[in-house]
């Protein structure tokens, strides 16, 4: 790791040796063209290798060159790029083009480049790319990062390898095809010669670059890095407190800002005690007009918080005084009519489900640091959208985007929240007013009460079964809260309208060969801001579908696993259902009060089945003991990271099944802390087992895959244990009323497992 001398100092992480930057006050990670060209001592050569849409697009940065060709061709959103540099000491620096919010892309994306470049992982240093058109679309979300970058970043690495090989072959006067690479060296076995990449890099950078589409990529059988459970490159810094998150940005003469925010939706500021706020020691400035409130700038965060307290703002909260969780529930229930089961069905099944608003509640609250110097801004932001932050800050200050440099920091969680850039725009507004360097921070109550929430929803379901237990009709109508109204049916031709506020993703259809399976979505206009939350509306749609399917299975007097296998049409899901069931021990004898449940999900290009073992005490306390996950995400680039995503999704689902919800009273959010927005703790965490199917299919998304099936699996297990069907989350004690405990008979008794199905304990690892 080499520190740069100017304010652009990047922090690089030595992936293998545990070496790390020692300057804890250094600016957060960031590289830009200038530092590439001039910054790092020992920088041997910088190659910027761009791949547009998986096809040909190459450019380079040379000591004498500027990247106009990149910018000229690199329309934002189209091009994906990688920056690779080979240092004199043989180390290789690779830029992570998008931010890491905990999903591990600073590790997994860089693995792709390193694999095809053919260097040892231990020689790799990771730097974070700044926001810039040359890196293509840098926003992260929709579990799309690995899917978008898998091929282009491999092509980028292979392109770097190709020019290094070409240079060596030229020096030796041999055919490039007679050479091979290994561990950062080019070898010509016939003559027993070899050269290190460091020896070749400078001259290689002057060679013509091959067409990205023409470079050959490794066969999966030859992968040495992809597929390994490689640990996060930031671990050493995280465990020692050196890792730099947004809040840790410390430009010189930094001042701190918090905002007094409207206490209810649509509340209007009527006045505040300016003198009292200014009298607080350390309070420096007040800025009105920040998100409908007043920003207080202080010498320290504490001074700003004390100033906000003293401000004692007065609000008109009449706009939504009649809005509460009860009125919202009524509006949602009225938003869709109850479907009826098809005529002639031997058995009709109907149900309704209700799901609440959820806050993102990232561990690191929203914050953004902006330093304004001579009309230019440097921004440190924990964000899912570096380029969105760049736009927002430029607009907020009133300067060109070219005058804004965004350095994405590590982010303390995202879950969709950091795809919004409101907090960056607020920081820009404040810095425009007061100049200098400002860190704007949301407190936890700000975060919980001013989020854009996972929408509340109401679901009405009906289906019929024939005499043999076949599903002969299926209707799922969802009313989902939105600040914009409208019927998704009208938008069937074009999904754009339905997704206008980002809350809808699940459409019709699905993995089952059941006519009508899926969802018909109607957005009900409610003035509670909503936005994407981990797995978007799959979090609601799949809960209702998979819980309802469980009801159908019982109505058909079929085992829930057998029922799914009988109705699934998605071939990649069937072995996963079998595997998750086998791993949980489906069909075994259980203590009274303990039950097993299963559910599955396909989305984001991936597939998962999850089974839960749950114990319900006689006083209605639900304990989730184990969750088994069988995952098919195509090629498993980093199994440790994939398991982590599964564990995290299970933890989220446990929290939202048992406790977490956002409610409203008189137009205001009721929850203001982790005391009232109760997330899962250590003792709540079930044992999670993850089986990853061996696959060479293209990678699917992982960040959201693990959430949508867990809550239904848990609730299906509760039904198996108690005979109580959970139809709303989070579970209330009264929803288990009548469950008299493990000694009580379960009504109705769960069907006997199908002995023919259950179950070889170990299935084919290949998942075929």
């Amino acid at each position, binding site marked *: 790791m080499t520190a740069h001398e100017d304010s652009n100092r990047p922090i690089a992480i030595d992936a293998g040796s545990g070496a790390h930057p020692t300057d804890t006050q250094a600016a957060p990670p960031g590289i830009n063209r200038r530092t590439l060209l001039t910054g790092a001592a020992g920088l041997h050569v910088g190659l910027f290798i761009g791949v547009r849409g998986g096809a040909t697009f190459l450019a380079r940065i040379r000591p004498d060159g500027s990247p106009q060709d990149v910018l000229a061709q690199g329309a934002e959103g189209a091009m994906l790029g990688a920056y690779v540099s080979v240092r004199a000491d043989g180390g290789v620096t690779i830029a992570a083009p998008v931010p890491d919010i905990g999903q*591990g892309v600073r590790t997994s994306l860089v693995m792709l480049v390193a694999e095809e470049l053919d260097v040892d992982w231990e020689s790799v240093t990771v730097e974070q790319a700044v926001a810039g058109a040359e890196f293509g679309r840098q926003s992260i979300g929709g579990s799309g990062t690995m899917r978008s970058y898998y091929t282009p970043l491999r092509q980028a690495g292979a392109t770097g390898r190709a020019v290094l090989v070409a240079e060596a072959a030229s020096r030796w006067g041999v055919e490039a095809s007679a050479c091979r690479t290994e561990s950062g060296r080019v070898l010509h076995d016939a003559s027993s010669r070899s050269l290190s990449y460091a020896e070749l890099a400078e001259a290689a950078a002057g060679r013509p670059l091959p067409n990205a589409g023409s470079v050959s990529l490794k066969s999966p059988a030859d992968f040495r890095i992809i597929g390994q459970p490689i640990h*996060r490159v930031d*671990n050493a810094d995280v*465990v020692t*407190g050196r890792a730099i998150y947004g809040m840790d940005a410390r430009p010189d003469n930094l001042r701190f800002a918090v905002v007094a925010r409207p206490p209810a939706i649509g509340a209007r500021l009527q006045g505040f005690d300016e003198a009292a706020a200014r009298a607080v020691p350390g309070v420096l400035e007040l800025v009105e007009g920040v998100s409908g409130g007043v920003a207080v700038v202080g010498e320290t965060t504490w001074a700003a918080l004390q100033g906000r307290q003293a401000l004692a703002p007065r609000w008109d909260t009449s706009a939504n005084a009649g809005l509460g969780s009860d009125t919202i529930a009524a509006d949602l229930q009225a938003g869709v009519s109850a479907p009826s089961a098809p005529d002639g069905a031997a058995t009709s099944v109907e149900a309704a489900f209700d799901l609440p608003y959820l806050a993102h509640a990232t*561990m690191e609250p929203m914050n953004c640091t902006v330093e304004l110097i001579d009309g230019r801004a440097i921004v440190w932001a924990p964000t899912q959208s570096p380029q969105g932050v760049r736009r927002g800050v430029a607009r907020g200050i009133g300067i060109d985007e070219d005058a804004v440099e965004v350095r994405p920091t590590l982010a303390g969680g995202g879950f969709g929240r950091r795809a919004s850039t409101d907090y960056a725009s607020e920081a820009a507004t404040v810095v425009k007013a007061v100049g200098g360097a400002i860190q704007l921070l949301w407190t936890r109550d700000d975060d919980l009460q001013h989020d854009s929430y996972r929408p509340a929803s109401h679901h009405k379901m009906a289906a019929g079964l024939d005499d043999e237990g076949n599903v002969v009709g299926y209707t799922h109508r969802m009313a989902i809260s939105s600040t914009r109204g409208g019927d998704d049916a009208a938008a069937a031709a074009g999904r754009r309208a339905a997704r206008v506020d980002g809350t809808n993703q699940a459409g019709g259809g699905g993995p089952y060969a059941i006519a009508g399976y899926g969802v018909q979505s109607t957005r009900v206009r409610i003035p509670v801001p909503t936005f994407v939350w981990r797995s978007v509306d799959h979090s609601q749609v799949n809960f209702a579908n998979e819980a309802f399917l469980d009801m159908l299975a019982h109505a058909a007097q079929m085992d829930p696993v057998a029922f799914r296998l009988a109705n699934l049409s998605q071939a990649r899901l069937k072995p996963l259902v079998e595997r998750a069931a086998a791993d949980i021990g489906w069909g075994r004898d259980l203590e009274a009060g303990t039950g097993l449940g299963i559910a599955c999900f396909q989305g984001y290009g991936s597939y998962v089945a999850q089974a839960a073992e749950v114990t319900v005490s006689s006083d209605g306390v639900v304990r989730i003991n184990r969750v088994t996950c069988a995952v098919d995400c195509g090629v498993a680039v980093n199994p440790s990271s994939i398991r982590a995503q599964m564990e*995290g999704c299970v933890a989220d689902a446990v929290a939202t099944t048992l406790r977490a919800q956002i409610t409203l009273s008189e137009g205001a959010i009721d929850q203001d802390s982790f005391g009232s927005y109760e*997330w899962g703790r*250590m003792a709540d965490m079930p044992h999670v087992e993850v089986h990853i199917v061996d696959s060479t299919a293209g990678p699917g998304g992982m960040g959201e895959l693990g959430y949508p099936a867990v809550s239904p699996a848990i609730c299906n297990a509760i039904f198996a244990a108690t005979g109580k069907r959970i139809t709303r989350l989070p579970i209330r004690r009264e929803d288990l009323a009548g469950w008299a405990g493990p000694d009580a008979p379960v009504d109705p008794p769960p069907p006997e497992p199908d002995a023919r199905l259950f179950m070889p304990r170990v299935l084919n690892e290949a998942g075929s």
Partner: protein
Amino acid sequence: MPTIAFHVNDEPREVDADGAMPLLWALRDLLGLTGTKFGCGTGDCGACTVHVDGRAQPSCVTELSRVAGKQVRTIEGLSANGDHPLQRAWQEHDVPQCGYCQAGQIMTAAALLDSEAEVDDARIDQAMSGNLCRCGTYQRIRAAILAAAAEVRP
């Protein structure tokens, strides 16, 4: 403003600040020790956990005046070279996802291992109950604590 003197990571430090200022903000904004994180400000999440005279406590609800003359230890001072058994175990189990809560998790776990030679699942559940992880790394945290405990056990 009064001057408040205490030790941070074995170094004597003085800050001129309101005695009601939470230790968290003194560490972060006055002393430049940003390894201790802000998560809630109400003592509900544990992200800001430090040791005061060897006991783990949330620095966001610990007033500066209460640490005068005391020994404060932050994640930056847990070990000289980042090699405390817990710091190594955390890396060996690839615990962090976003990583933001982990300094607080480690400081709580370190206080636990300092005070007790034997820990089990139930004790970990109890001792770690004040530390929230929004990414859901609990299973790996548990494994890392058990591994480190096995190493330090006399």
